[in-house]
């Protein structure tokens, strides 16, 4: 556990100041067709300071963590802030100091020996090799990481947090009858916690691997969707991606200042009244979020941020500086990834809220369209234009599922596409295995129900 060397040095003196010590541990094991390709682990840590000076920020970090380095980073951060203030002379008012968040060190476990990860990955790989001889390739990846942070801020926050997470991924490849290789992957399980919290006996996931294999076999006989605009049902993994990529980024206040489409849409109708969207801090609909965040790296206690209410854009995600600019309440969205990173406005657990429809009714309502079930990645623009890769799906003909789809892409403009939402399923499914990318990576949760809408879909 991190020793507390931070209490004492932080005083505001009229300038918002943060001191943060952090250690990040990680493990990655990768088995490719029986070969242990990656057997890697590491620990990186240090201390950083950030100081606000009349509208300019100074930051400094150091890999060493002792009393001298704490003093040194604080001094350097102040000097960097003063250097910019001297050049720019913005003359902005001090930042508001929020109510302090104080918490002691939580119970934390070591990230565990590498053998546990390797044995599990090799056992899963052996099962797949034995059970599915028709596969042309297979990969099993096991990852674990743990973020431990000790934060002291000039608002009086003194927070010691530990956030571990683990995941197991399986990738399967098979050839079409024309000899083309197709791939499909799934995150078997994982989330906030340690390896034994999820993974004990590989057999508990055999059924899930079997489903993945069957979908891949469907895909090898699949078709390309017809290019153009189509009625689709986005499964939860896609609607969660939509919440994050297509809407979430545009309502991050730093991107609003940078000119995002949300800047002139606050208070306006941007979606069907069926659409509600929230960036949850730690608890959603009475249950813990996949990656709970209780205090951000500016020392602000975390609370939920409602982004879209009944189709109306009602909020942005802020840090202290942008909240002051937009006269909004900061709700703890300023997050830093590594000890050497400054806090940026980031999402936490962003979701489209469930509606009242049943998936089978949604499928039955479409004469000609597609059910899109798996996505690999997504990107969005500050204009709200988005793109998701679609790795798996099925055509819908006369209200019934038909042939599987090959890899394709969907795209649209978020605030136009959301107005076409006509049905929303009554469940909420979370995913949290990926990273959001924005100068720094960041673990985030994304969630949603199935959503019926119109999007542009790529063909061949």
């Amino acid at each position, binding site marked *: 556990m991190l020793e507390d060397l931070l209490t004492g040095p932080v005083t505001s003196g009229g300038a918002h100041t943060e001191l943060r010590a952090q250690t990040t541990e990680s493990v990655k094991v990768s088995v490719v*067709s029986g070969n*242990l*390709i990656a*057997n*890697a*682990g*590491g*620990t990186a*840590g240090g201390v950083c300071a950030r100081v606000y000076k009349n509208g*300019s920020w*100074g*930051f*400094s*970090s*150091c*890999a*060493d963590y002792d009393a001298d380095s704490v003093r040194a980073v604080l001094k*350097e*951060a102040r000097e*960097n*802030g003063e250097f*910019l203030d001297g*050049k*720019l002379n913005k003359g902005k008012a001090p930042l508001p100091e929020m109510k302090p968040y104080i918490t002691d060190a939580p119970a934390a476990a070591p990230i565990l*020996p*590498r*053998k546990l990860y*390797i044995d599990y990955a090799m056992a899963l790989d052996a099962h797949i090799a034995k059970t599915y001889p028709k596969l*042309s*390739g297979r990969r099993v990846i096991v990852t674990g990481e743990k973020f431990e942070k000790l934060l002291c801020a000039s608002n009086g926050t003194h927070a010691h947090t530990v956030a571990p997470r683990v995941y197991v991924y399986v990738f399967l*490849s098979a050839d079409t009858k024309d000899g*083309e*290789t197709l*791939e499909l992957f799934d995150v078997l399980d994982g989330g906030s916690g340690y390896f034994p919290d999820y993974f004990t006996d590989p057999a508990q996931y055999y059924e899930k691997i079997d489903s993945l294999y069957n979908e891949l076999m469907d895909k090898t006989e699949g078709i390309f969707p017809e*290019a*153009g605009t189509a009625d689709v049902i986005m499964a939860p993994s896609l609607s969660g991606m939509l919440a994050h990529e297509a809407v979430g980024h545009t309502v991050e206040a730093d991107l609003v200042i*940078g*000119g*995002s489409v949300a800047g*002139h849409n606050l208070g306006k109708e941007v979606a069907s009244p069926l659409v509600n969207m929230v960036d949850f801090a730690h608890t959603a609909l009475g249950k813990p979020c996949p990656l709970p965040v209780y205090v951000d790296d500016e020392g602000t206690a975390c609370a939920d941020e409602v982004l879209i209410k009944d189709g109306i854009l009602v909020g942005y995600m802020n840090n202290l500086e942008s909240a002051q600019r937009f006269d909004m309440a900061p709700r703890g969205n300023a997050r830093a990834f590594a000890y*050497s990173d400054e806090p940026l406005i980031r999402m936490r657990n962003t979701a489209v809220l469930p509606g009242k429809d049943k998936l089978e009714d949604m499928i039955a309502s479409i004469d000609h369209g597609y059910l899109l079930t798996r996505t*690999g*990645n*997504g990107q969005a*623009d*500050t*204009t709200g*234009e988005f*793109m*998701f*890769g679609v790795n798996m799906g099925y055509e819908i003909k006369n209200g019934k599922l038909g042939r599987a789809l*090959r*890899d*394709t*892409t969907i795209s649209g403009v978020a605030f136009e596409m959301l107005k076409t939402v006509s049905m929303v399923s009554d469940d909420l499914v979370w995913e949290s295995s990926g990273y959001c990318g924005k*100068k720094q990576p960041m673990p985030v949760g994304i969630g949603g129900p199935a959503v019926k809408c119109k999007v*542009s879909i*790529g*063909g*061949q």
Partner: protein
Amino acid sequence: MKDLKEIASYTLEALTRAGADQAQCTVARGRTKELNIDGGEISLMRTLLDNQVSMKAIKDGKKGTAAINKFDKAAIDQAAAECIEAAQAGVADDAVTIAALTTNAEFKVGADGEDMDAFYDRITEFLDTVNKEYPKIILEQVISDYSESDSVFMNTNGVCHRVQRGGYYFESMFSAHEGERATSFNSYGSQFSDLSRPIIDVGMQRKLLEQSQQELNAKKFEGKFTGKLLVSPGCLGDFINMALDNFISDTSIIDGTSPWKNALGEKVADGKLTVSMVPLDPRMSGGERITDDGYVSENYDIIKDGVLRDFGLSEYAARKTGNKRAPNTSGCMAIAPGDTPIAEIIKGLDRAILVCRFSGGQPAVNGDFSGVAKNSFLIENGEIKHAVTETMISGNLAAMLNNIPAISKETVEDGSSSLPYALFDGITVSG
């Protein structure tokens, strides 16, 4: 401990003491001074000091790795013990190894020390020029830094290399705005070893700012055609990298999913295409000198006149599959120019899309891809007509590389690549 060679020697001793049969390590010290612009305003100055000790041990034919960022003996001893424990937990594999001793080398590359005052002046000059000459542009974010590092690679075969490196990096992300109209963001990154030129004049920066303003008058692309795609230099690098990731990465060659797995020495692309990795090229700013595996870097061709010459594999993947390792691991890509000026290529096109950024999903293993053509323009009757939005493009990377009617005579350099425009045929474009 402060001396990097002393730390590296200690790390090898710790690994050997812990039971390694063979061991290697990289020990590095880095310092970065960074300046950020957010929403058009200079916002943040950062100073970052970091250390790195990454280690690899082989015991009984099994490999383990570990990494820390501390230089004290206790931390190194603990990491070495974890590295050996990881190796023991692994699987014996004849392909794991460490670099053989050839000639040890020391290099000093890139900028020799920072000049932050001059760099600050270049950045404010960039801001002023954008505000004056491109008034509709908002700089959403700029990240600029001077970074220097001192790095030692050492292994138990007696290999000992040292690389000292310094250089400036500048990346801008921007879009154009007029009232409530806004364009897609675009971005451009460049690296350089000196501050002799205004940053705005490096590579494609001016061109992309100019195009961004033109995109305010973009029209939605309607319809569908299968035909030509003219790919800008930056975007060409992205497409070629997607193809290389799919077709010649360690993973795709080891698990045999690459359609090029048996194509060494065979034609995989149009004869006009030559793709090389050239960290030693003077156009590259502070390019790699030592590979990830610990060999002195050399330039090499991946595709020469359309023929696949090298898979670009790590030493492990090379030994695993009976191929040779890549002569460098830099990613410093150069694509040979063609013989047609870009203006003539455009003049000869009846209908095509000029794509300057591609936002797409991970291509399928067989190379099928689809995505959105961002910051892109419609070409008709030999002229660039107007910018387009919501334009999907799809095709197959392997087929696309075999269908290249022209490559431009001009290339663009950004300090880590040298790339021309390239024209591809057989791409599906739909609105």
